[in-house]
Each structure stands twice: as C-alpha cells, then as structure tokens.
C-alpha cells in the first residue's frame, strides 16, 4: 500500500472510516475462498500416475511457472524453459518471476482463488509451511518416476521435501554461503591473493594486515543479507544451532550464538568494518575495492564473472571450531489446483520431470546441484567456483523443516540488527529475540498441529 492513499473513497469519507475499511480490506480480501483442499479433493494426482515420465500427448496446454529468480539465475531458468517449450510441441510454459517475498505472499492467495501457477519453486524452509497450509500438493508419483533416491541427495534438502509422510518437493539445488575475496585489495595489504585465510588465526591476521593498510577488510552487515547468513554460519561453527533438531525450541541464545554474534560485532569494534553498513553495501564495497572479504551466497558468482574484478571464492574460513556454512535449497513444487484437469496435471509433471533433470545447466547459473551424482560429474567439476563451494556440502546447515519456522527467523534478524546497529549487548539481544521466537514457534506448533 503506497503512502498517499488518496482514492476517491478516502477523499469522500472524511472520517477515515473508509481508510479503516480499506485497511482491513487488505487483510479480509484474502479470506474469500474455502480451503482449496476442499475444492480440489484428492483428485490432484496425475491420472496416469507415471509422474510425467510417459510424456504428454493431450491437447495443447499452456502452463504457468512462478519463481523468484530475479538475480543472475533468472535468465538461465528462462533459457531452460525456452528449451523445454521447443522440445515439447503441445506444451507452452510461461515463466513469471517476482521477488521472493512477494511470491510467498501471493502464492497462497492465488491458489485459494484458483489462479495458482502449475509449477513453482520454493526454498527448503518454506516447503513444510506451504504443505501444512494446503498450498502445494504431494508429488510422490513424480519422485518415483524420476527414481529419486535419498542416497543421491544431501540429507536435509531431501528430508525437507517430506511432510506428513508424503513428498511435496523435488530438490533442484543447494546454495551455500561462500567466502569471496578481492585479490587486488589483498595485494595492496601485502597478502597472498592465492592463499586466502582458512581459519580464525589467519583470518584475523589478514584483517589486521588490511587494517594497517587502511582498509576495513570485512564489512559487518546488519541485514539478513549478508549479516544474518554469516552469523548463522558462525553459530554452527561455534558448535551451536539455531533450533533443536525437531524445530520445537530456539537455541540461538546459548553460548555458541553469543560467541558468533560477538565475533561479528567485534569486526566493527576492532576497526575491521565501518559501524553502520547499508543494505548490500558490504558486497558493493567488495566490488569497488573498498574491502577485501565478503561472505555471500553462491548466486553472486555469475554477477562477479561479469566484472573485470580480480576475485576468488573459497569455503568459509573456520572461525569457530567446526567447519560450517549456511545453505538454502531451491525445490520444485506443484501448487494445488482448484479444478482437477488431468491433462493439466500430466503436462505439469512432464515439465517438472524434464526440468529437474537439467542439473548441469542450472549449475552454470551459479548453484550447486542437489544430486550427488550431478555434483560428481565431470561437467560440474569444470566449474571451478561452484566446485569450490560444493566442497562444503557435508558442512552445510539448513533450518529444521517444520511449518512456520521462517516466522521465528525474523526474530534472529532483529537481534543481529539490534546488536550491530543499536549497540545492544549480543547476549541480551539474542536472549530477548529467542524468547519472542520461542513464543512464535509454540503458536505455530499449536496452529499446525505440532
């Protein structure tokens, strides 16, 4: 809702009652439909039950495919879709890309009004929520048609697709956090750009050398990107976790969490980072040669490749005692459809089946394939940056896959923000936020039936 809400309504209804109504309308307008599960029923599964393996020979079918690939990965996905369309005369897939936040807010309303896309993408930590909320449908048939086996996937992305004993998502990729460094800046400070630091001691030495050369070497972002992802990684490195494994309790206020956030805030206090870093400024600083190090997502590889920067990427240095890094995972999902059209269901599965096998092309977009076999392939090994980050695969950490887990993560980001910008003591910031997050977890557990 933009700031000047100056519709004729508000103008005429002086007493603001219209404004009041308009506001609740935003919320209420979404309450129209009954649960799509009532409408669609269990007739959601493909009529043929082959999960799309048998192809599609029905009438011309137009499919919609929604995702949030607004970055360098978007064009690659678009090219894959175009290739699919060229190879399938009777199916035309239209891809729509929007910001992830908008996507997650829009998808349920679209599904409940019967306008949901045929195929979608979801992050690993959103699958359970959307399964619980009847936004996406089970696709066991596709999984078995693709002969997916747990042994071929990293454990968490695989497990994340399961909810209530059914499979709701097919893993596409794993996208870990990595350690990017600007080689030119490192040389300015007399550091060897071919030997980036790998542990706490060498990392601190490097930052000190940079500081002596007048460079703030690692900008500590107060925002979820990249501060939140970095501090999460550090929590795991110091031997802690954000939640208990069952996702029932918040654990980030324990000692490892405090150590992690303290280390992050100390970057500022020791002069390795400016005090109030803006959104994305940490990454821009790396590109502009203002800083040497930035922990950022694997999705930046293609962006950096387009510059003439001298840069490198490595696994995160081990600051705590254990190698560990944050990671997310993109997964394919089939949103619930209100009308059960078996041709449509079949065509959607054919597309899903086809595109989930294009691991290598997707890896070139700057992601790590979810399949072990694809990661070990010779083609993937030819992508040096991706391979470097894929080396962390056994040390990657994901959020527990319980419905509504993302709601409580916003509390973690608040603690980061308060400690990094507000000067709040890390232990207090984390304890306060953990207390609030625990309440959210409890509420969600009750809401989604635990």
């Amino acid at each position, binding site marked *: 809702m933009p700031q000047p809400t100056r519709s004729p309504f508000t103008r005429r209804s002086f007493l603001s009652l219209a404004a009041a109504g308009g506001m609740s309308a935003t919320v209420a*307008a979404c309450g129209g439909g009954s649960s799509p599960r009532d409408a669609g029923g269990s007739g959601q599964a493909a009529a043929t039950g082959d999960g799309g393996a048998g192809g599609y020979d029905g009438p011309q079918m137009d499919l919609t495919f929604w995702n949030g690939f607004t970055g360098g990965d978007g064009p690659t996905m678009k090219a894959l879709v175009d290739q699919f369309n060229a190879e399938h005369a009777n199916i035309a897939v239209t891809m729509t890309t929007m910001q992830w936040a908008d996507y997650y807010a829009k998808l349920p309303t679209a599904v409940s009004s019967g306008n949901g896309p045929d195929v979608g993408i979801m992050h690993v930590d959103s699958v359970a929520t959307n399964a619980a909320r009847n936004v996406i449908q089970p696709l066991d048939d596709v999984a078995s048609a693709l002969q997916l086996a747990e042994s071929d996937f990293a454990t968490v992305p695989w497990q994340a697709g399961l909810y209530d004993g059914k499979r709701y998502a097919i893993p596409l990729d794993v996208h870990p956090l990595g350690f990017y460094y600007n080689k030119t800046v490192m040389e300015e400070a007399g550091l060897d750009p071919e030997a980036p630091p790998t542990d706490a001691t060498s990392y601190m030495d490097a930052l000190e050398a940079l500081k002596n050369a007048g460079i703030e070497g690692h900008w500590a972002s107060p925002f979820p990107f990249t501060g939140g992802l970095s501090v999460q990684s550090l929590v795991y490195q110091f031997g802690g976790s954000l939640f208990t494994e069952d996702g029932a309790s918040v654990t980030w206020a324990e000692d490892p969490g405090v150590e992690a956030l303290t280390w992050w805030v100390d970057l500022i206090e020791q002069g390795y980072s400016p005090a109030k870093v803006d959104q994305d400024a940490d990454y821009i*600083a790396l590109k502009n040669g203002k800083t040497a190090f930035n922990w950022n997502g694997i999705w930046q590889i293609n962006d950096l490749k387009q510059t003439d920067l001298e840069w490198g990427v490595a696994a995160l240095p081990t600051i705590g005692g254990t190698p560990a890094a944050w990671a997310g995972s993109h997964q394919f999902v089939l949103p619930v459809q209100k009308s059960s059209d078996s041709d449509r269901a079949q065509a959607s599965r054919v597309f899903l089946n086809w595109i989930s096998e294009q691991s290598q092309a997707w890896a070139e977009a700057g992601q790590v394939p979810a399949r072990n076999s694809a990661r070990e392939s010779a083609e993937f090994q030819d992508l040096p940056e991706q391979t470097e980050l894929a080396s962390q695969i056994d040390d990657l950490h994901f959020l527990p896959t319980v419905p509504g887990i993302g709601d409580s993560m916003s509390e973690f980001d608040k603690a980061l923000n308060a400690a990094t910008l507000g000067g709040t003591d890390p232990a207090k910031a984390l304890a306060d936020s953990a207390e609030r997050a625990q309440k959210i977890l409890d509420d969600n557990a009750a809401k989604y039936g635990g």
Partner: protein
Amino acid sequence: MAVALRLGTSRREGSPWLPYLFLAPYLLLFVTFVAVPAVFGLWISLHDWDYMLDSQLFVGLGNYADLFDPTSVIYPDFWNGMQNTLVFTLASVPFLVALPLLLALLLHQKFPGRTFFRAMFFAPYVLGVAVIGLMWRYLLDANFGLVNSLLGTDIAWTTSQPWAWVGLVAVTVWWTMGFNAIIYLAGLGDIPVEHYEAASLDGASWWQKFRYVTLPGLRPVLVFVVVITVLASANMFGQSYIVTQGGPTQSTQTAIMVITDLGLSRFQMGAAAAESYLLALFLAVVSVLNFWLLRDRDAAQQRREARAQRRAVTR
C-alpha cells in the same frame, strides 16, 4: 431505462429510485470493496484465522486482548509500530501542510514558465513508491550514496537514528508535496479577487492579506489537506519498507508494516485484522479531533447567535 422510469412517473418529481440509480455504480464498489470487507474483517478478527486452513478457530476477543497483554507475541511489535507511526506522522505532517502552502503561494503568482514549474513540483507524485523508494535508497546510501557525496557528509541515512527519520520525512515531503500544493492552488483560485482589492484599499500589508484573506479563504481546503495528510502519513508503508527495511532495529517499522507482516507473511489474519481495527479506531479519533480543532469558530459563533436571535424573535 432511466428515460422509461421518468416517463412512467410524475415528470416533476422523477422516480424516487432515480437518485439511487445514479448512486448505484459507486455504491456497488463501496459495498463490495469497503463495506463488506470491513464487516467481514471484524469477523476475521474474532478468529485465529488462516484462509488456507480448513477450520478457523473462534477466539472471541482474544486477538484484541493480546494487543493489551505485554507478554503476548504481537504486543511489542504492534505498539512499537504504532509509536513509529506516531513519530512519522508528527514529523512529516507539519512539513507536508506548510511547505506545499508556501509553494502554492509562489506558484499562484503570475510569472513566465508558471505552468512548467507547477508540473515540475507535481512530477514526483506521479512516481510509484517502489520507484522513489529504490531511487532514494541508493541516493541515501551511507557508504556510496550521492547525497553524502554532494553534502560532503558521512551520515548513515538509512541505518542510524535520527537520520533515518530525517531521510524518510524528506523523501516523503519531496514526493507528495506537489499533490498538496495542487489542492492549495485550487483553493487559492477560489478566493475572490475583490477581497484582496478591498484589503488593499484598506491599506493591508502582504502579511495582513495572507492572515485575514488567504488563510480564512483556504480554511475548507486546509482542513481537507490536514486530514488527508495525517491519514496518508499514518498509513506510511512503502518508504520504510524499501529504504530502511523498518530499521535500524525496527525503529522505522510502521504499524501498517507490522500488520502486513503478521497477516500476509505469517498468515495470522485474525490478529492482523484486530491490529487493523485498533489502528483504524485511532485514526478515526484523530480525524474527528482534526475537524474539531480546525472548525471555523467565528462561523460557529455566528450560527449560534443567529439561532439565539431566531429563538428570541419567535418568543
């Protein structure tokens, strides 16, 4: 159809339904998009409502009770948002009321290029909030922004207080000033020239003309501008959402942002609806107060006296 109705009934009176016929299009929109959602929203606010789930749990006034229970999950965020909304409204409304008035006075003068300047000052208002938000996020960037570079300062416009508010208020003023100025211009055009001539003949100074002719002549427009600006400021969302992401430490997270997040990201529709109604109640009270404070006291006095006279005469 309207013609048939007229022919079928008294020519002078018209059908009694005729006015409703003309009202119907607006009424239909109003009922569909304002009245029904407003009532339905009340119903939602009495539930633990998630439109994707099969059953909605009735919680009575529980959601409202939570808003007054400091230990509830939604309490701190909501009241923090309300407080931020108040800060923004108090900080932005004086500028948004006064500056456009000055601008309108300037643009009301006759000078070459007047239309061009009128269009120029109105131009930012045409832009969507996403455009101005992104643009100013880059301009105000503390580390690489143009604003710091031009001013030769080193201010964290989006990540420190009070600068975040200064930035957001300035952006909002720049963005919406033209709209209020246009309203004022229309009001200025309605003030009869004779009033100014009479004032000149009586030897009124520029200030006296402004104080005793312009301001009273603008009163209805001024009331409109104040009420609409307070509401618009209290509904601020996009600027904070894009420029500061509600930061630093949620200090620019407005009530609407809190409600949106709760309702559309965390899908707690019932609690979000309850928050909406509480905010609406506040805004209704504020609007009534505005009317009351800005009412024409002289005119009200005159009306009272006239009534008293009439009573005296009839008695």
